[in-house]
């Protein structure tokens, strides 16, 4: 299972991404489970809104953080997210 560069990426409808005040971090919630996210993972997932492709997510984040060369890290994280069912491409 890998990311199709042509298709937009969407956060799963059966998971919830939410800021947890008590933990001071973003988490993914799903049936009887929770994954704690670091800041960069959360920023990537917030852009998975069903309109942006992989390349657009990379360029938006590179612009937002005034940096470059994020393609490999973002791709690797999104592959993991896809395998875990946190995102999909339909």
């Amino acid at each position, binding site marked *: 299972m890998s990311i199709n560069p042509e298709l937009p990426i969407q956060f799963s409808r*059966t998971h919830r991404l939410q800021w947890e005040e*008590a933990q001071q971090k973003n988490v993914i*919630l*799903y*049936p*009887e489970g929770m994954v704690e996210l670091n800041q960069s993972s959360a920023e990537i997932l917030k852009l998975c809104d069903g309109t942006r492709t992989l390349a657009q997510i990379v360029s938006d984040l590179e612009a937002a953080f005034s940096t470059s060369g994020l393609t490999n890290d973002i791709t690797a994280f999104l592959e993991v997210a896809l395998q875990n*069912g946190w995102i999909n491409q339909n």
Partner: protein
Amino acid sequence: MAGLTKTKPTPPRWLLAELTYACPLQCPYCSNPLDYTKYQNELDTDDWKRVLTQARKMGAVQLGFSGGEPLTRQDLPELVKHARELGYYSNLITSGYGLTEEKIIALKEAGLDHIQVSIQASSQELNDHIAGTASFNHKKEVAHLVKKHGYPMVLCVVIHRENIHQMPEILAMAEELGADYLELANTQYYGWAHTNRDQLLPTKAQFEKAEIIAQAFKEQVAGKMKIYYVVPDFYEDRPKACMNGWGTTFLTIAPDGVALPCHSARELPGLDCPSVKDYSVEEIWNESKAFNFFRGTEWMKEPCRSCDEKDKDFGGCHCQAYLLTGDMHNTDPVCSKSPHHGVIQEAIDSAAASTLAENEKPLVFRNSKNSKLLS
């Protein structure tokens, strides 16, 4: 106060709200206490709302509405709505009995995130026998409706000697129903399951065969369905890290408002578990005797005290130590280092002998009549 830690405990993350002990099913492995009929005074709607608010403020985020059968509470949609407003992820843990499409829609609108439906077996005859209620076809219908309305669907099947041979059919049923998650919960022997252990505990050969089938299926459905496999700890040589450590993560509130560090803790002697009618959740979690009792490692006796794995399994399960050795401070006898480890083999042998006995003892079903007889 035994085991009192000086550092502030980590806050609860998981709140299990046992709304009621009432249940139309009679499963003989029910985790409710044997004497559940003694606790008739259920918390009212305002009590539950207060508890949800207080626990959420501390950091609880996963919320299980359980029981008994939580659908018997008429205020369930109101509680779900309150939970959603507070930002909980709400799980409804139900037998499916009495769940209609109308209720499924109403709960979705109230903000329920997920429904876990239990099925007792892959055949109608065995399901209805174990549940003590004709419910098989309705449960399958409920599973379809849960999917239809966009919930993630978790199918939960408790595994024991009466149904373990159905493993291939159970897996096929989960696939046919479109389960997103399948929980294969090998019976844990507390409460009613402890009473019925001779009739429920499978042999090691049965476990191993079922596990191989489940493992192969897990690989086959990877990416489509997730399998939660609750291990049969009687066939392990190290205990489970029960509750992720006492008073670290899990908070159970029983129907009458008693706060428990695990849902079986009610059967432990001398804990004086506090009630949310008398104290706030914060006072209970941080300061009560019950929640501090097994925190940390100070309470431990040998072989746990000097064991290099004590931070991994926290000595295992105190309820199991109590039920099988008579002392809740003992190491969980599942551990092969426990001087009481022999009781596990005795239990296995006793269950095996029971299958060969000419007149096998009948299962004791979980109902009010039997509860009164046993309490």
